C-alpha cells in the first residue's frame, strides 16, 4: 500500500459537482442550433398506414420533419446487436432490423415514427403533436413465456414464435440424473421483473455536421464514447471513423442504460447533416421510461437438488428472457454469457444446467442494467439456498458453509473451474461469510428475531452469499462466444516536461470517481502528489480507443492498461536516469519518486528525468526524447468479486409493509484503491437491489401499455427507505492483473435483492407462504399472509 492507494482520498470531481459546475450534455449549446422532438407510437403494436407531417411542417419555427420513410429512402438501418448467440441446433440467431425510425410497423409504445426539428424546443414539442399518424392497432404480446406459444402476436415478420435463440450450458444428463436421485429438491418459479433504470439525467444528444470540415461532432450521454463512434460510424451512418468525434462530458448516472447506441442520437447526427445545423435533443422523463433500455425481465423456473447431508448435487434453471421489441447492443449476451455462466455460484455443485430462450415482446427493449445477468443468476441460487435451508431444517449459513468452494488464491492454488465455462480467479468464501456473521453478530440477531417472533412481531433474517464475473473481458474468449467487439481497454500516460502527469483514459466515469482513483494509482507509482496528476476521458479525439465504463470493469481493465503505461514510463525513465548517474539501469531502484543507485545515495528524481526527456541535451544516444506511452490491456480472465450480505426486516402485520431495519455487506473486491469510493458503490448498488426487491417493476397491461411510466407511479427507493448500511471488506487479491483488483460497482445490486426477499420469507415462515413475487409491495405481502398461499 502506498501513500495514496488504499486511502480514502477525497474525490477530485466533487469540487465541481457541489457548485453545480458539472457539465452534462444538455448544458452544452452550439450556435445556430435546432431542437428535435421525436414522435413516438402510443400503441404497443400497430401497422403504420400513413404519416401526415403537413400541419407540423407548416408551423412557424419548424425547420424540418423527418419520418421513418425518409430513413428507409436514405438506405439507412439503425443500431445493431453486438453479440451473436446462435440456436442450440446451430441455426443463426434471428436479428430483426431496428431502424432509426420505423416506416412499416411500430413494435412498442415509444417506437419513433417521426422527428420534428424546430428553432426552439417548445415549437418542436407543439409541432410534434400535429404529426398525424394513422395506425391499425394489432394485438400485443407482453409476457416472455407466452411469447413463444403458437398464436401469440408476432413482433417481427421473420422471427417465428418470437424466438431470437434458444441456448443451454452445462451438462443436462448429469443434472437430470442428480435430480432423479435427489434426497431433497427445492423449486422456485418467478419473474425477475422488468426494471426501468431512471438515471436522473435523461439521455441527450447534441449533434453537429460541419460542412466546411466534413466532420461530425456528437455530444452524448454515453458510457462509452469510442464504442459509440465505432457503431455509429461503421454500422449505422457510414461515417468514416476519423470524421466523427464523440464527446461524453459529465454523465448523470448510467447503470448500463447509457452503454447502448440508441437510434435517437443516430437520428440527430443524420438530421444535422440534412439540415446543415446542429440538432439538440433531450429526452423528457416519460420518454425516458419508454425508450431507455429496461433491465431484467426473466421468467425463470429454478431447482436445486440435495443429498441427505445437505450437499448440493445439482442445479438447473429454465429461463424465458425478454429482449423487448428490438435487440439492443448487448441484449443477447446478458441472459447467456453473463447469467448462465454464473450458475455455479460459490458452491461445489457438481452438475449444473442452464437453459435460456430469448424472445421479443411488444415492450421497451431490454439490455444490461446494473448487474446485467448476474443479479438474475444470484437471485435464483441464493433464493434456492435460503428456501432449501428452511425446508430441510438447516441454518442457512451452515448450508452454505457445507457447500462453499474451498479457499484458493489462483497463485499457489489454481483457479476454480466451474461447470459453466468460467474459471474463478481467487476466493475465500468461508472467511468472508464468517466476517459478515461477526460484523452482524449473528447469534444475537437470531436471538432478537426469535424473541420478536415470540412477541408476535414479524422479524426475519435473509442471506445472500454471491459471486459475480465482471471486468469484462478477454477478447478472444468473448469473440469465440459471439461478441462482435473486443473488450480490452486503453490508457496513455503523458509525463510533461515539468514532471506533471496526464492520464488519457479509455474508460469514462459517470459516478465512479476515476479522476480520483486513477490519479491515486499513478501518483503513488511515480512518487508524486495527487495534485501533480490529472485524468482526461470522454472525448474520442483525446483518448486512446477504450471500451468505456460498465460491467464493473474500469479499474481491472483500464487500470491495468494504466499500469502498463506506468511500467513503460519507469523503464525508459530508468534508462535516462542511468545515463545521468553514469550507471546501468540494473543498478537502479525506484522508490519515493526517485531512481537511486542501489546501496548509495546517488539519485535523480522523477521530475529531473521528465525534464531531461523533453530537454535532451545530455541524453542516451539511442533514446528518443519524450516520456509518453499508450498501452492496451486485454484481460486474461474475468475478475470475480464476492461477498456476504445479511438483511434484517420487520414486516408490519397489519399493512404488509416491509421495513429494512439492518443491512450488513461484507464484500471482497480484491485490493482496494479508495475505500470511500468502494463504500459509495456498495451503498448505491444495495439501494438499487432493495429497490427491485420491494418497490420497482414496470407494469404492462395486455395491450402493452406501460401503466407506471412516470416517477409518480414507478416507485424508486428514497432517503427514508434504508437503515444506515454496515459495510466491511475482505481483500483476496486478483492474481491476474497488476493491481490485484476486482470490480465493485454492481456487487451491491447483485447481492441485495435475494437477501431482502429471503429476509421477508424468513419473517413470514410461520404463515405457510410458499413464495412471493417481486416487488414485495405491502399489498402482495399482506395478501400472502392472509390467504395462506402464494402471493
Amino acid at each position: 500500500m502506498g501513500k495514496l492507494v488504499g486511502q480514502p482520498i477525497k474525490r477530485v470531481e466533487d469540487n465541481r459537482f457541489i457548485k453545480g459546475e458539472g457539465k452534462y450534455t444538455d448544458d452544452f449549446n452550439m450556435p445556430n442550433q435546432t431542437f428535435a422532438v421525436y414522435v413516438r407510437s402510443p400503441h404497443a403494436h400497430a401497422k403504420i398506414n400513413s404519416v401526415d407531417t403537413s400541419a407540423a411542417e407548416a408551423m412557424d419555427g419548424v425547420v424540418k420533419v423527418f419520418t421513418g420513410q425518409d430513413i428507409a429512402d436514405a438506405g439507412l438501418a439503425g443500431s445493431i446487436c453486438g453479440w451473436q448467440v446462435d440456436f442450440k441446433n446451430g441455426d443463426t440467431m434471428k436479428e430483426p432490423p431496428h431502424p432509426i425510425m420505423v416506416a412499416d410497423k411500430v413494435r412498442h409504445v415509444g417506437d419513433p415514427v417521426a422527428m420534428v426539428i424546430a428553432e426552439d424546443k417548445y415549437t418542436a414539442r407543439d409541432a410534434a403533436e400535429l404529426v398525424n399518424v394513422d395506425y391499425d392497432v394489432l394485438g400485443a404480446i407482453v409476457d416472455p413465456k407466452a411469447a413463444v406459444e403458437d398464436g401469440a402476436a408476432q413482433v417481427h415478420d421473420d422471427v417465428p414464435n418470437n424466438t431470437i435463440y434458444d441456448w443451454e450450458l452445462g451438462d443436462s444428463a448429469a443434472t437430470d440424473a442428480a435430480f432423479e436421485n435427489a434426497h431433497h429438491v427445492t423449486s422456485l418459479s418467478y419473474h425477475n421483473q422488468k426494471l426501468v433504470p431512471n438515471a436522473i439525467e435523461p439521455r441527450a444528444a447534441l449533434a453537429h455536421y460541419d460542412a466546411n470540415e466534413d466532420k461530425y461532432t456528437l455530444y452524448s450521454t454515453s458510457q462509452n464514447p469510442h464504442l459509440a463512434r465505432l457503431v455509429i460510424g461503421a454500422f449505422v451512418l457510414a461515417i468514416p471513423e476519423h470524421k466523427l468525434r464523440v464527446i461524453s462530458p459529465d454523465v448523470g448516472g448510467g447503470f448500463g442504460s447509457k452503454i447502448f447506441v440508441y437510434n435517437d442520437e443516430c437520428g440527430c447526427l443524420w438530421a444535422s447533416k440534412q439540415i446543415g445545423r446542429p440538432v439538440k435533443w433531450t429526452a423528457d422523463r416519460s420518454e425516458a421510461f419508454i425508450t431507455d433500455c429496461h433491465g431484467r425481465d426473466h421468467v425463470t423456473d429454478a431447482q436445486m437438488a440435495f443429498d441427505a447431508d445437505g450437499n448440493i448435487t445439482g442445479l438447473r434453471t429454465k429461463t424465458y428472457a425478454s429482449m423487448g421489441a428490438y435487440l439492443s447492443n448487448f441484449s443477447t449476451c446478458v441472459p447467456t454469457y453473463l447469467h448462465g455462466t454464473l450458475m455455479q455460484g460459490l458452491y461445489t455443485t457438481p452438475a449444473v444446467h442452464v437453459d435460456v430462450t430469448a424472445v421479443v415482446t411488444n415492450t421497451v427493449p431490454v439490455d444490461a442494467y446494473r448487474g446485467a445477468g448476474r443479479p438474475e443468476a444470484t437471485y435464483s441460487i441464493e433464493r434456492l439456498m435460503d428456501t432449501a435451508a428452511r425446508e430441510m431444517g438447516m441454518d442457512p449459513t451452515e448450508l452454505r458453509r457445507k457447500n462453499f468452494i474451498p479457499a484458493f488464491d489462483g497463485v499457489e492454488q489454481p483457479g476454480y473451474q466451474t461447470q459453466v465455462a468460467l474459471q474463478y480467479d481467487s476466493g475465500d468464501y468461508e472467511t468472508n461469510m464468517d466476517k459478515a456473521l461477526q460484523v452482524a453478530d449473528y447469534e444475537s440477531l437470531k436471538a432478537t428475531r426469535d424473541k420478536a417472533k415470540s412477541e408476535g412481531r414479524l422479524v426475519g433474517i435473509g442471506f445472500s452469499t454471491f459471486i459475480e464475473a465482471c471486468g469484462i473481458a478477454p477478447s478472444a474468449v468473448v469473440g469465440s462466444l459471439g461478441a462482435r467487439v473486443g473488450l480490452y481497454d486503453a490508457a496513455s500516460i503523458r509525463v510533461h516536461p515539468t514532471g506533471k502527469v496526464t492520464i488519457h483514459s479509455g474508460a469514462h466515469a459517470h459516478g465512479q470517481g476515476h479522476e480520483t482513483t486513477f490519479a491515486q494509482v499513478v501518483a503513488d507509482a511515480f512518487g508524486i502528489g495527487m495534485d501533480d496528476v490529472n485524468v482526461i476521458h470522454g472525448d474520442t479525439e483525446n483518448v486512446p480507443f477504450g471500451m468505456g465504463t460498465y460491467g464493473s470493469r474500469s479499474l481491472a481493465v483500464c487500470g491495468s492498461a494504466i499500469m502498463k503505461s506506468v511500467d513503460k514510463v519507469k523503464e525508459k525513465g530508468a534508462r535516462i536516469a542511468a545515463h545521468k548517474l553514469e550507471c546501468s539501469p540494473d543498478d537502479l531502484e525506484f522508490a519515493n519518486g526517485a531512481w537511486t543507485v542501489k546501496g548509495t545515495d546517488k539519485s535523480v528524481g522523477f521530475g529531473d528525468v521528465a525534464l531531461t526527456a523533453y530537454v535532451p541535451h545530455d541524453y542516451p544516444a539511442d533514446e528518443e526524447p519524450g516520456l509518453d506511452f499508450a498501452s492496451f490491456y486485454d484481460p486474461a480472465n474475468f475478475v470475480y468479486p464476492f461477498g456476504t450480505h445479511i438483511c434484517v426486516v420487520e414486516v408490519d402485520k397489519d399493512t404488509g409493509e416491509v421495513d429494512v431495519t439492518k443491512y450488513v455487506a461484507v464484500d471482497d473486491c480484491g485490493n482496494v484503491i479508495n475505500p470511500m469510493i468502494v463504500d459509495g458503490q456498495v451503498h448505491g448498488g444495495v439501494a438499487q437491489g432493495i429497490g427491485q426487491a420491494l418497490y420497482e417493476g414496470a407494469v404492462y397491461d395486455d395491450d402493452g401499455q406501460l401503466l407506471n411510466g412516470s416517477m409518480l407511479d414507478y416507485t424508486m427507493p428514497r432517503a427514508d427507505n434504508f437503515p444506515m448500511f454496515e459495510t466491511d471488506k475482505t481483500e483476496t487479491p486478483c492474481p491476474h492483473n497488476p493491481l490485484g483488483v476486482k470490480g465493485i460497482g454492481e456487487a451491491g445490486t447483485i447481492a441485495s435483492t435475494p437477501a431482502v426477499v429471503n429476509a421477508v420469507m424468513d419473517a413470514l415462515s410461520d404463515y405457510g407462504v410458499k413464495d412471493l413475487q417481486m416487488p414485495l409491495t405491502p399489498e402482495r405481502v399482506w395478501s400472502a399472509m392472509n390467504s395462506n398461499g402464494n402471493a
Partner: protein
Amino acid sequence: MSEFTLNINGKQKTVNVDEDTPLLWVIRDTLGYTGTKFGCGRGLCGACTIHIDGEATRSCVTPIDNLDEDVELTTIEGLSVENPHPIQEAWLEGDVPQCGYCQSGQIMTAAAFLERNPNPEENDIDTAMKMNICRCGTYPEIKEAILTAANGSLANKGGSDE
C-alpha cells in the same frame, strides 16, 4: 411573451419569455445558470430545486409569472459567493456525490432545511430529503453530511455508520 425582472443570485436580470415558462428553463436556457438540472419536469425528483426567498422550491413546476414581486431567487451558483456554504463543505468532507447530477437539488434542499431546523434528528432529515431522488444511492452520505453541517464542526461528525 412578457418581460420579467428577476432578482437572482444577488443580481437583477431581465428576461423576455412566455408567461407560463417554468422557472427551470428561464434559469437554464435564458440566463445560462446550468447548475440547476432537469430530471422529470413534474416536481417529483428534486433535481430542479432552487430557493425562493430561502425556501426550497421545484423550479420545473413554477411558472415564471407565478412569482411574487421582489422575491429573491437563489440557485446553486449563488448559494455561496466567497466561501463555500457549510453544506457544501460537508458534502466535500463526506465525499457525497457520485455522478453529481442530482446534487445541486440535494444541496439546495438540505441548505433550506438546515436554515429552518439547525439541530435535526435523523428522522427529520429523512423526511426533509425524501423528495429528492438519488439513483446513485448517495442517501447515507447525504444524511451524514447534513449531520456534520448541523454539528457545526467538521472534525466532529454527527451520526454514525453503525
